[in-house]
């Protein structure tokens, strides 16, 4: 059976549009050094490095682990590169954890990044695929019709997305690392922002960020060597389904429901809204909060928007199940790192180390990531208790 593992160090960069002051190597090293410092450890204390990022075309560097090994102190050690589309940050954390949970290694460093300013993600996502119809849409164009279908089915008010966009930016204003700092944002301001892909407005979309996120994960036996409280990994799961198939449920995908059921069973979660103190969920477009509230079992199907509108997911409104207290993907989106940021922010909460966006007394939290055409899922449950 799996060995018990915990997060003992977390490091992030500041997220911003362009980190012109550092190379890609400098960016990942900054996050890694921060994680090692947080764990009270040095490079020699790491047995292996697991790196993840979204498509290589986002920076134009093929298999960047080849180039980044020096910056990440990995020479002479094993290095693995994970790539599972937008869920990659979460998947990378899970693959890193498996290095320890399998008993193969005692302590590993895992790093994810995106330096979007080095290239153009919209281009990389939109170039024609051989033998496939060309949809020059990017992610927003892909998800907008699915969101419209959600609105039609659920009868959600038009401004549920606007509410999420506002709430997550107010959360982000509590997080000094967040890319967007909009402490005075209002729902009116979001509503008046330009419509990009109906019904997704400019301010209902995630930004494009440079940034990196790193974690040190170790075996139970080494947890005491790091000074701060650990976040115990209580469960981890991944699921995939094809982009398209006859009868595919795209609004509430089966793979997401299966993944949640799997990770909840591992962690003993029976009522997510009650059992979790908070959640960091991959919401790159505002409407995905109510949609994932349902997919992840926090609300009945068709009722997710009611939690959003009632403020249940808002730290500022004293909600019972705050989502994305860090500001979420809507406040910072270094794509390849975004999933790991969710996982790491969940861990920060249960370590009691989340600064101004701390949920008081948080014991158990969900980290979630998705990618592709909402078809790849990675989730973990972390807790202050073993």
């Amino acid at each position, binding site marked *: 059976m799996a060995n018990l593992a915990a997060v003992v160090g977390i490091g992030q960069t500041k997220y911003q549009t362009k980190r012109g002051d550092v190379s890609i190597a400098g960016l990942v090293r900054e996050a890694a050094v921060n994680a090692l410092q947080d764990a009270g450890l040095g490079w020699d204390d790491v047995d292996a490095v697991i790196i993840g990022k979204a498509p290589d075309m986002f920076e134009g560097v093929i*298999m960047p682990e*080849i*180039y980044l090994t020096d910056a990440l102190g990995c020479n002479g050690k094993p290095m693995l590169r994970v790539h599972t589309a937008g869920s990659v940050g979460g998947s990378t954390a899970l693959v890193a954890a498996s290095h320890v949970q399998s008993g193969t290694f005692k302590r590993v460093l895992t790093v994810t990044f995106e330096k979007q300013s080095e290239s153009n993600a919209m281009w990389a996502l939109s170039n024609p695929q051989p033998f*496939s119809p060309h949809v020059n849409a990017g992610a927003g164009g892909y998800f907008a019709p699915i969101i419209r279908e959600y609105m039609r089915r659920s009868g959600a008010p038009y401004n549920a997305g606007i509410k999420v966009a506002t709430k997550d930016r107010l959360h982000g204003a509590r997080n000094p690392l967040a890319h967007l700092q909009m402490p005075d944002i209002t729902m009116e301001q979001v509503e008046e922002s330009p419509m990009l892909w109906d019904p997704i407005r400019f301010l209902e979309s995630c930004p494009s960020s440079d940034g990196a996120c790193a974690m040190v994960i170790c075996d139970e036996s080494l947890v005491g060597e790091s000074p701060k409280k650990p976040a115990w990994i209580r469960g981890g799961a991944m699921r995939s389904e094809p982009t398209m198939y006859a009868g595919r449920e795209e609004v509430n995908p089966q793979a997401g429901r299966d993944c949640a059921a799997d990770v909840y069973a591992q962690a003993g979660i029976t009522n997510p809204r009650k059992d979790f103190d908070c959640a960091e969920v991959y919401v790159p477009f505002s409407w995905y909060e109510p949609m994932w509230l349902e997919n992840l079992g926090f609300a009945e199907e068709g009722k997710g928007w009611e939690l959003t509108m009632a403020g249940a997911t808002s730290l500022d409104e004293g909600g019972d199940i705050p989502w994305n207290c860090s500001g979420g993907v809507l406040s910072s989106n270094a794509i390849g790192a975004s999933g790991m940021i969710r996982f790491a922010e969940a861990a920060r909460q249960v370590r009691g180390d989340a600064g101004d966006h701390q949920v008081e007394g948080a014991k158990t939290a969900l980290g979630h990531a998705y990618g592709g055409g909402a078809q790849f899922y990675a989730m973990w449950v972390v807790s202050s208790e073993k």
Partner: protein
Amino acid sequence: MSATDMTEIAIVSFAQTNCVGDAGAANEVELIMPVVSEALGKIGLKNAQDVDFTCSGSCDYQQGAAFAFVFGVDALGAVPPIKESHVEMDAAWALYESILKIRMGQAESALVYGFGKSSPGELPIVLSQQLDPYYLAPLFVDNVSLAAMQARQMLEQGVCSEAEMAEVVSNSRRNAAANNPRAQLSGDVSIEDLLKEDQWLAPLRKHDCCPISDGASAMVICTVEKAKEWGVPYAVIRSIDHRIETHNLGARDLTRSVSTEKAAAATGVGDGPVEVAELYAPFSHQELILKRALGLGDDTSINPSGGVLAGNLMMASGLSRIGEVAQRIIDGSIQRGIAHATSGPCLQHNLVTVLEAA
């Protein structure tokens, strides 16, 4: 890092396409589906839902589009959804990830596959973009030129001779003709005739370089208990380890492979006789480097399949090396062998696994 004290893992099935220079209009799904079906079918499984985990290796830049692996999922029939992951590396590393998943108890069986269609692009130029993006990639130094520089160092230092390099090629072609119907290059060529050919990227001759191939390979692994339950023959993965070394070519002794030496020590390559070694050496002189790094003697049959000089399925070749050794153990022709996979310029990153009969 040895697997000896952990869950014993078995390779129960392996399949590979022919190595072809140009797969024509066949897309990635059409390359993958036959090998996945064959690997599953050999042991009586029908689809990806019959194993607990699936992991693949591929490279977006071969297809020239982001998320190439997403189309791989289409080849799996992942309905209902499956537990699945992907590495942007050779599928030998997808095998590694799958082994961890089984060791931690989250799976008892896994399907691993790798695929690559290199023909639409210029692979050596494409691979130049895996170099340092600020100092090296803008120069578009292709991986063949870097390998030529490595070979030059070896020749000038007297580490090997051109005749030894040609012997590697001659052996590869002969082995492929004798043992590997899926090879792209095979035949009976003498060392003398090979040396008569002109140099291409000096000191490399064209035949010192692997061909560029389209294709895929797939493997099924599981716990030894599961293999027994299925009632299928298997090879045991005794140990597996991989190491990377510095990207700075000037800081490396290119005539050695330090990372392979480390992985060989960690896996206990020398702890028993090595009957067969399948080495991922895309250039003839690299086989000589690897042979030394792994401590192999003349009693080891190296690359009985012909190795990648007979056909190189970029992103699947490493997995295929492991599959070639496993098949020889499964069919009873050998008891113990090793397989090697590589990534990066001049053997920067290397994986070694030791396989044994049950």
